[in-house]
């Protein structure tokens, strides 16, 4: 057994589900002959043929809309956005067509929309998006963002088998990161939607995070342990919708301090909802203000010094964590 990358884990998940279930198919721009802009579907066309690996025109509304139509028919389409930034071109199909379908008609819509999200790759304002807050705010769609190769595979399999629209955000910075390579179980497995995982245990503070920021938080936690003697707990949310409120609350009840870290911009981000949840339900348990580290309220910049200043990193996380610890 060989250790696989985060990207290979995604590829394995789709391939295995397509082998397992004839109703699963993939459609998107350049997914067939070219194997996808990031080569997630390399070799798929040869194995599954052009009716299950569909190269589409440059039409996000047609891609997502067709996926909705196919899902209405009981298929399990996977609609790829070449970069998740382009999901805006198909926004209406998601928020009005897909998200309200079961609720108003009783017809389930087993549909996955996936694509490379997140920054750190010099992609600039149109190839670095973290669009989760829009969909986190929208009832009727599940939103997941894996941080490890194991989760990338298990969450995607769970998403494909789910009977609802699922937005699966894969962080492109993690795609080929050597340190994320891991050996995956040879048997079939899923990571259930709506279950967070504690990546590091600690009693002084909880960091709530997801996606690539999990790794920044783990590095920060290590530094805080070494330099400050702080035991920081890092909770990887994995799913934003459904949100694992129990794991979040259980952790914060033990640590009494919370730092929320996300790559998306601050205002109205996922962190704002987490903060509200904790303020409402765990007020008596908190020994300090709920604090947040996030991108500034500005569009994602291109130039490397700007990008460095924009993305939350270990240094900022450590600095804010120290303020909170001292409170």
């Amino acid at each position: 057994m060989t250790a696989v990358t985060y990207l290979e884990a995604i590829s394995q998940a789709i391939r295995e589900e397509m082998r397992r279930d004839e109703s699963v198919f993939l459609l998107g721009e350049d997914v067939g002959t070219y194997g996808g802009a990031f080569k997630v579907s390399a070799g798929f066309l040869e194995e599954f043929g052009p009716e299950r690996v569909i190269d589409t025109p440059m039409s996000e509304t047609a891609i997502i809309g067709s996926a909705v139509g196919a899902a209405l028919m009981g298929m399990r389409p996977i609609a790829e956005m070449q970069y998740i930034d382009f999901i805006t071109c198909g926004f209406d199909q998601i928020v009005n067509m897909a998200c309200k379908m079961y609720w108003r008609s009783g017809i389930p819509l087993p549909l996955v929309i996936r694509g490379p999200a997140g920054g750190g790759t010099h992609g600039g304002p149109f190839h670095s998006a973290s669009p989760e807050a829009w969909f986190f705010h929208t009832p009727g769609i599940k939103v997941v963002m894996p941080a490890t190769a194991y989760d990338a595979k298990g969450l995607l399999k769970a998403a494909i088998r789910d009977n609802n629209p699922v937005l699966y955000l894969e962080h492109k910075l993690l795609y080929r990161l050597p340190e994320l390579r891991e050996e995956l179980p040879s048997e079939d497995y899923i990571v259930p939607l709506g279950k967070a995982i504690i990546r590091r245990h600690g009693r002084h503070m909880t960091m709530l995070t997801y996606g690539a920021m999990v790794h920044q938080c783990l590095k920060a936690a290590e530094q805080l342990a070494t330099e400050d003697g702080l035991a920081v707990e890092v909770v990887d949310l994995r799913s934003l919708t459904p949100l694992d409120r129990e794991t979040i609350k259980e952790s914060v009840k033990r640590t009494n301090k919370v730092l929320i870290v996300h790559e998306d911009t601050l205002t109205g981000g996922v962190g704002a909802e987490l903060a509200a949840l904790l303020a409402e339900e765990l007020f008596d348990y908190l020994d300090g203000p709920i604090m947040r580290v996030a991108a500034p309220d500005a569009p994602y910049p291109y130039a490397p010094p700007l990008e460095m200043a924009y993305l939350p990193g270990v240094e900022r996380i450590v600095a804010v964590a120290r303020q909170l610890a001292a409170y």
Partner: protein
Amino acid sequence: MSEAERADLLLQIYYYMRLTRAMEDRTRTLFLQGRIVGGVYTAQGHEATTVGAAMTLRDGDCIVPQHRDLGMHLVRGVSPRAVMCQWLARGNAPTLGRDGQLHIGDMHHGVVPMISMLGESLPVACGVALVMKMRRRSTVVLASCGDGATSTGAFHEALNFASVQRLPVVFLIENNGYAYSTPTAKQFAIEQLAQRALAYGMPGESVDGNDVLAVMEAVGRAVAHARSGQGPALVECRTFRVRGHSEADKADYVPPALRQEWLTRDPIKRFEEYLTAQGLLSAERRREIEARVRAVVDDAVAFAEASPPPDPATVADYVFAPDGPIAIVGEPGATDPRYVNALDTRTGRPFCTMSQVEEAVTQL
């Protein structure tokens, strides 16, 4: 088709046109009486287009209708009771009071629920047709939109995608002269919307949308083209919205002479004259049909009015579908209750959009 069969078919068409008009007239009355809340959209003048187009379909075909397509719904077997429950926002309506109007569907009977963003249903129609193609079926999708929706990106993306993929879709444009208050001259700069077909490499034709037999011929040709595996086709039905965009709209932006001209071309009156001249519609037969229409409408309204409102305690329910196996619609056994999409899992009962299956019209 024998003479008698043809006579029956023509009278059935006439019945559906009359039923469509009567349902909408009653809907308007209920709105004016304050018994229907919100927007009411009707389609007086569209009956030849909507009924005629739907009459060309068979079992297994699918419609992707819009807000003025009650005629299409009724021909394909949608229940008048369900329609009235929708208008009256009842708890047993197909949307359980979550949505109104004709925003209803049942995939097992080939009806895709629309949304208010017109044009967005067309890419969805492509997805349904894609599955028909994948499953090697000889069925087709009939997807409609108005002149206004032809200006949306979704319209153009759908036509292009359908053509590239050679999907069995018939795009039906109901050009009724106005998108709300916007006349066609401000909507597009070509002579006929059928010309849009040329740009996407599919056949297109423009037809008198107030002549039900002409509509059936034109849409029938398009359906035959799509069914034969040659890809999509487009039909523009030229008709007119003789009332406002909604019942709240007086439509005083429409020149009175123009409206009057189209009122004289009323599709039901024209078809009646044709049937009478052919000796197919006696005064007695007409009275019978009128009585049947009235009975169906009365029953639908009475049923809806006796139906309960939705329970406010359920306001946050039904956002997500439950786990379980999903059937591919149209495959043998797809309505086995073990499938999550076989029944309406919100209620645990069958979907309530359609009348009894045997009442649905199929190709005669």
